[in-house]
């Protein structure tokens, strides 16, 4: 009898396509994957304990460092949790500003995530750089309004740090004239590329039922065909005022996730259009002036607030003991929980598919390791 020997390979922690310091202990039989164990913790900094030591306001810039692609969304989610805990009203205008920032974040995240996914597939960074170009423009806007490109630290309890001005709005409108061209170019470049089709179709299938039992969220869940989106399921901020669709896949493979992300960018664009249109009528300023930001002491209790981050459901679970800092601060990080489905999605495929499947989950190690 011919016998093949299994080979154990460590993909990571220093590896070009593990999206950070992430390690996959992979057992392969030839090129076929037999077993996969994700190993992480290399970036662990005990973020949750920092949250118990910091005051509520002091913790805001630390949330930037979770999913450093979408610090605006992280800020939003954390601010929501604290507002819920302390019963703070948020003015309408601030809600609109937050929605605009969230949707811009979603576009920039998907643009770069798709680029990275195709980079993992071996397309030589062309799509990535096109995505990064759009991301740069959005980051410039973030810098204009918040002062920093990636670590925005923009939300405050009851609003946002600074109001947006006409220049910002006109620049967003200008950006939005270019975005459809980018979407079209991107689709023309690769969506029907034969090599992409054979690499992505039928790879890393995660059926609907399994996806639900794995608690995965975001494009991963929607790619599997579950129309679940926190923006629709629990319309926070002012998301109930916008008309947008949830893109879903049918099979749940890498190609579906890819297409869902492309379509989500277009839906974000729709939300942006409507938000910009409705915003001038919004009441209130950019922040609730009554909130004592620095010495906030929410009443004893607990709260859980979640938003639809580009990676999935991002939630903050806070327990207050009435003091100036949280008693318990827990982050429900979408990348972290989405990773639990990785091993199952990869088994039986080739080594080359593993990096593609990992890329299609779209993880950020800052959030996974916390």
């Amino acid at each position: 009898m011919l016998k093949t020997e299994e080979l154990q390979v460590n993909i990571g922690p220093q590896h070009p396509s593990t999206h950070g310091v992430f390690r996959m202990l992979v057992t392969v039989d030839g090129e076929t994957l037999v077993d996969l164990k994700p190993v992480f913790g290399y970036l662990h900094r005990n973020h949750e304990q920092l949250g118990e030591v910091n005051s509520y306001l002091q913790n805001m810039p630390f949330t930037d460092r979770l999913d450093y692609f979408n610090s605006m969304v992280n800020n939003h989610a954390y601010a929501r949790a604290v507002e819920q805990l302390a019963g703070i009203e948020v003015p309408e205008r601030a809600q609109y500003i937050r929605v605009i920032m969230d949707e811009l974040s979603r576009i920039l995240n998907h643009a770069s995530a798709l680029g990275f996914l195709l980079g993992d597939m071996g397309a030589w960074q062309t799509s990535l750089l096109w995505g990064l170009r759009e991301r740069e423009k959005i980051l410039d806007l973030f810098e204009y309004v918040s002062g920093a490109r990636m670590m925005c630290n923009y939300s405050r309890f009851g609003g946002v740090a600074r109001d947006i001005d006409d220049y910002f709005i006109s620049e967003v409108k200008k950006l939005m004239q270019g975005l459809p061209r980018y979407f079209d170019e991107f689709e023309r470049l690769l969506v029907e590329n034969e090599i992409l089709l054979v690499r992505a179709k039928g790879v890393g299938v995660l059926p609907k039922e399994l996806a639900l039992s794995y608690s995965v969220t975001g494009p991963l869940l929607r790619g599997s065909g579950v129309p679940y989106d926190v923006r629709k399921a629990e319309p926070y901020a002012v998301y109930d005022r916008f008309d947008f669709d949830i893109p879903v896949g049918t099979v749940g493979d890498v190609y579906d996730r890819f297409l869902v992300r492309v379509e989500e960018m277009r839906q974000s664009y729709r939300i942006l259009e409507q938000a910009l249109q409705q915003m001038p009528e919004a009441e209130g300023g950019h922040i609730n002036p009554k909130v004592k930001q620095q010495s906030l002491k929410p009443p004893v209790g607990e709260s859980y607030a979640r938003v639809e981050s580009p990676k999935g459901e991002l939630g903050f679970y806070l327990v207050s003991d009435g003091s100036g800092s949280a008693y318990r601060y827990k982050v429900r990080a979408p990348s972290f929980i989405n990773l639990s489905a990785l091993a199952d999605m990869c088994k039986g495929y080739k080594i080359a598919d593993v990096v593609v499947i990992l890329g299609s989950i779209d993880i950020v190690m800052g959030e996974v390791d916390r």
Partner: protein
Amino acid sequence: MTYWPVIAVDAWIGLVLVSIIKVTLILVGGSLGMMFLTWYERRAIAYMQDRRGPNRVGPQGLLQPVSEAIKTMTKEDITPLDADRVVHFLAPVVMLGATVLAFAVIPWGNLFPSSLRVGVLFIFAVTGLHTVGMLMAGWGSNNKFALLGGMRGVAQMVSYEIPLLMALLPIILLSGSLSLTDIVTRQGDWYGFGWYVFSPVGLTAFITFFIAALAEGERTPFDIPEADSEIVAGYLTEYGGMKFAVFYLSNYMTNLALCFIMASLFLGGGNGPGVTALGTVLGGLLSLVYFFIKALALFFLMVLIRGTVPRLRVDQLMGFAWKFLLPIVLVNVFSTAIWVAITRWGPQAQIFTDWFGEPASDNYLRYGVAIVVTLIINLLAVYAVMRINRRQPSDLTEEEIALGLAG
């Protein structure tokens, strides 16, 4: 046809001197060509990605490869602790040696370093040595990624040698010679436009050869042996400094050689309008210009493909070679035979002469008939192969897919 100039002092001394000059020219020209190619590729791909590319060292960044050469040469030479030191050291030497040997017969325009009568055979015989170097590097590094990369490389090279060589057969049939010199000269008809690519069989051969050459030169979408997103750098993982530079040099020189070969075999080498009319010296220079334009355009196509498409998976790569390229190439050999029969056979097939007239280079009827017949055969072949290979997901039931019966 022009040979390199010979100083007729004494036959023997002349031979030695000429050989030394040729070897120097090949080595210098090959290395400079490789340096230029790296710059060219990086600038081109940068423009595709809305960037500028290297533009700091020297005019337009042309000296960037020089600075990088200096950097790699001054780096520490590292051999992994448990590596097979001899094999690890020899692998880049074998790789580069194979490439440089191939340059011995590759024409530069209408100028040939040496006119070997079995030039085509020689080139592919020596470049086949690449496989050995790759396996040596993969095995000698004592690294799992390197081993995977080496194995992938060997499998890929061996599979793609077959369509590569079979794609050449039509050219050899058309020209009736294995000598590159002859093949290039034969394409000088039709005012310098008698290139083999302008016939259905030549075009099919060119396309298949180009695809197989991408695989031979480890270009995207077939850069699987050194797929950086999967197995770090494949068989190059444990190489650094000068040894890595030698691998790199060999890789780009192989690509250069492949572009030169394609330009010579299919695109008429240095042939073009005006080459024969301008005489030996001026015509030779013009042929060099034509030749480089063709070769660099081919390389640009390679870069364009690299900038666009993702990489195939290793099993898909094999499937593509065996299920798609090979049948088409085989059919193409058959239709080449028909082409040659229709255009050349006079007395051997009296019936052709009765129908189409005597075979001659200005008998357009014969060429027209040959074009139509071979085009139909080739298109039918492509259609049939695609039809057979096309996956029909709707034909399979869910259970079949789940049980892995879809194959």
